[in-house]
């Protein structure tokens, strides 16, 4: 199975490992991430202005490119996934945005949200299957207590993202379990890390992250796992628990970590 792949800017810089491990794991699990030939930055945040169109176009281009190939579009970064999925939802359901974006794009066939956007974790859950994944684990992470950190972008708004239960998600816990480790369920796992507020009000972001890491540590998590470069950045600043990308854990369990980077 081959998927169109949208890495995103951060995965070319600060979060290179998130990207490289994802590709290596995909091959180990028997599917291919085929990077879109031309992709532009998703913008990092979904533009909330209902009349804002320009900053949605990079996503539309990526979505249409995947449509041309007849492939589902996979993202690994929470933020890219969030933006792509929400713009896709607009293109399918918001007539005004659909019309204006298509007027601008001048595509041969207008794009109307046909592409299915998947997060890498969804590919693991819904396409590979966690039971199948478990079978492919060569070095299980037995005994490790890992706290899943979801953040906001994967889960909300839940009617559009339709990723998992926004209040009591389980996908990362199931993932951790499949790798042989023990998931630590703690209440702040779906609370905000502060996001970009860390650029402006560093202390606020730190206090938000402290709440998260203190809670996880209280429930005896040894480390946190996330899919978002910004969450990782903020949580690292807090510095109380090691934070790793889920792809890194996956690569370790599948025995492809060494060769990946």
């Amino acid at each position, binding site marked *: 199975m081959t998927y169109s792949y949208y890495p995103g800017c951060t995965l070319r810089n600060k979060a290179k490992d998130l990207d490289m491990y994802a590709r290596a794991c995909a091959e180990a699990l028997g599917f291919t991430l085929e990077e879109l030939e031309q992709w532009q930055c998703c913008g990092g945040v979904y533009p909330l202005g209902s009349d804002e169109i320009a900053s949605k176009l990079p996503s539309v281009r990526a979505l249409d490119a995947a449509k041309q190939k007849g492939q589902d579009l996979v993202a690994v970064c929470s933020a890219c996934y969030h933006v792509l999925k929400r713009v896709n939802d607009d293109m399918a359901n918001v007539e005004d945005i659909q019309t204006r974006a298509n007027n601008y794009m001048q595509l041969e066939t207008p794009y109307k949200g046909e592409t299915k956007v998947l997060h890498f974790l969804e590919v693991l859950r819904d396409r590979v299957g966690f039971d199948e994944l478990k079978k492919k684990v060569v070095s299980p992470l037995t005994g490790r207590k890992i706290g899943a950190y979801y953040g906001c972008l994967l889960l909300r708004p839940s009617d559009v993202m339709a990723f998992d*239960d926004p*209040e*009591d*998600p389980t996908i990362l816990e199931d993932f951790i379990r499949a790798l042989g480790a023990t998931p630590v369920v703690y*209440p*702040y796992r779906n609370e905000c890390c502060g996001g970009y507020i860390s650029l402006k009000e560093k202390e606020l972001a730190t206090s938000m992250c402290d709440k998260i890491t203190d*809670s996880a540590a*209280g429930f005896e998590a040894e480390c946190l796992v996330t899919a978002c470069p910004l969450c990782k950045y903020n949580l690292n600043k807090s510095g109380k628990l090691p934070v790793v990308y889920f792809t890194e854990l996956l690569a370790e369990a599948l025995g492809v970590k060494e060769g990946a980077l």
Partner: protein
Amino acid sequence: MQRIGVFVCHCGSNIAATVDVKKVVEMALKEQGVVHAEDYPYMCSEAGQSRIGEAIAQKGLTGIVVCSCSPRMHEATFRKAAERYGLNPYMVEIANIREHCSWIHKDMAEATEKATILMRAAVAKVHLNAPLQAGESMVTKRALVIGGGIAGIQTAIDIADAGYKVDIVEKTPSIGGRMSQLDKTFPTLDCSACILTPKMVEAAAHENITIHTYSEVEKVSGFVGNFTVDIRKKARMVDIDKCTGCGVCQEKCPSKKTPNEFNRGLNNRSAIYTPFAQAIPNVPVIDTTACIKFKTGKCGVCQKVCQAGAIDYTQQDEIITENYGAIVVATGFDTIKLDKYGEYAYGQSKDVITSLELERVMNAAGPTKGHLERLSDGKAPKEIVFIQCVGSRCSDDRGKPYCSKICCMYTAKHAMLIRDKYPDTNVTVFYIDVRTPGKNFDEFYRRAVEDYGVNYIKGQVGKVIPQADGSLLVQGVDLLDQKQILKKADMVVLATAIEPNPDVRKIATMLTASIDTNNFLTEAHPKLRPVESPTAGVFLSGVRQGPKDIPETVAQAGAAAVKVIGLLAKDKLKTNPCTAKSDELLCNGCSQCANVCPYGAISYETKLINDHGIREDRRVAVVNSALCQGCGACTVTCPSGAMDLQGFSNRQILAEVDAICR
């Protein structure tokens, strides 16, 4: 040629504000056969009806069209009026220009045009109406009550006291229902069991009441006055006549790990069990999914210890068939599932419980013997937070749009009882609104606040956060102070929304009774016929119809009983003459109509038919008009067009369609 009168009702301003009634009258007079047309503010009033009478007498009307509200509302009224003035009641047709027109349109020109078209269709139909005579059917003087909670028990007792036989069918092993799970009842704080169990005993001892517990209604056929019902009596594996209710079997049963439904799963029960000590009948059942004997074949302890020899592993489900004149649905409610409310940590912490679970915790016969304690560590909670409207008044699909009605009062009750018994425990209640209409209700709530110092905070809770030390943090908002609150708690109680029991669809389908978008059974009229279902002979009692507390439930149960008694008091009922009729000359005996008939009203006989001089024996359909309910399924199925519905003939319906398309 018919002489038709058209009567256009204003319904005050209900119709007249949107439909130009004068114009409809004017247009009616242009219709063929219409010799009289007039409008009147309230056609259904005495004066309105007598105008119809005058027109019948003066103009020699042979058919009448009333342009008014839904026929469900006043068809019977106008048919009775016509009959009074000497016209066959089935010569009256209703054009529904209120529900189907004025109430749903805003533009007067558009609504007037539509009203005119509806009038025209009704006139076209009346041209083809023929006088029909209602037949008679017998009434079986026995009632069925589905559900053995307080609603069902009260309805049954009231019917039985009037001298009629009643059967209660209850799916669990005992009657008693939700009320038997409650500790105290508002606003008087009397003990639930103390006022319920005498009623249970009264029902069980009543000479006119038969109780089928651990039983379910399997099939319903027939019609008002003549229902035939199959009841599945599930195998108890215990002989109800031999068992003495000593309870030794339950003590000795080695399988004790099944969640106790009666205690909301807060503790476990044995595989052979009675739900609670005052159960009626006091005869246990064997849960075969938990019983070691049924799972592995090796055990049989209960049989060995039973002195009465009542245990019988070979019992099979039994289907009994009974006839009833009326059916009352009193199947009650449950609390909604909370799996979509992850933010309250219900599944994550044992110390987050629902209010119904708290009832069991506070009940002396409950899992903690009535001691208020945390279910995680058995410690006494010093800070308790109640969250109201969990799943009620909800605008998304996680909960219910309606107010569950009972939660404000039972939360005040819980808060007050806890403050009374454990004065050093603080109680905080988060609420959206406190709704306490009802006799002595607001006084009760104010007592909780003013005399018992319960801390009421207007605002909702966003998250309940289990802490590593086992305590809980409640993150909410105080809307009046406009600030966020982070409150430490030892226990959180969720006032969970109630919903009709999930078997509602099955029962509604069996009874052809309609349900609303929230799965509550619909009333025949929300204000004027609140305990009757639109299906004749089916009545509603208790929360099945809508959220209500115990006093209201008991009142409604009595009202349902009165309606049943009114029905059973009649020896004969008039039957609907709008039944199917087969044209023997066209019928080819194919059996398709009999296959679709839900009432078993069609049979076949071989008859000598004279078809234009050709005399031959043919197999033809015959409709039993006493059984036929006029649903029309056979008429649309019949491939040769032999089957027709009197009063709704194919010709009449096509004439209506033609008139609409004209």
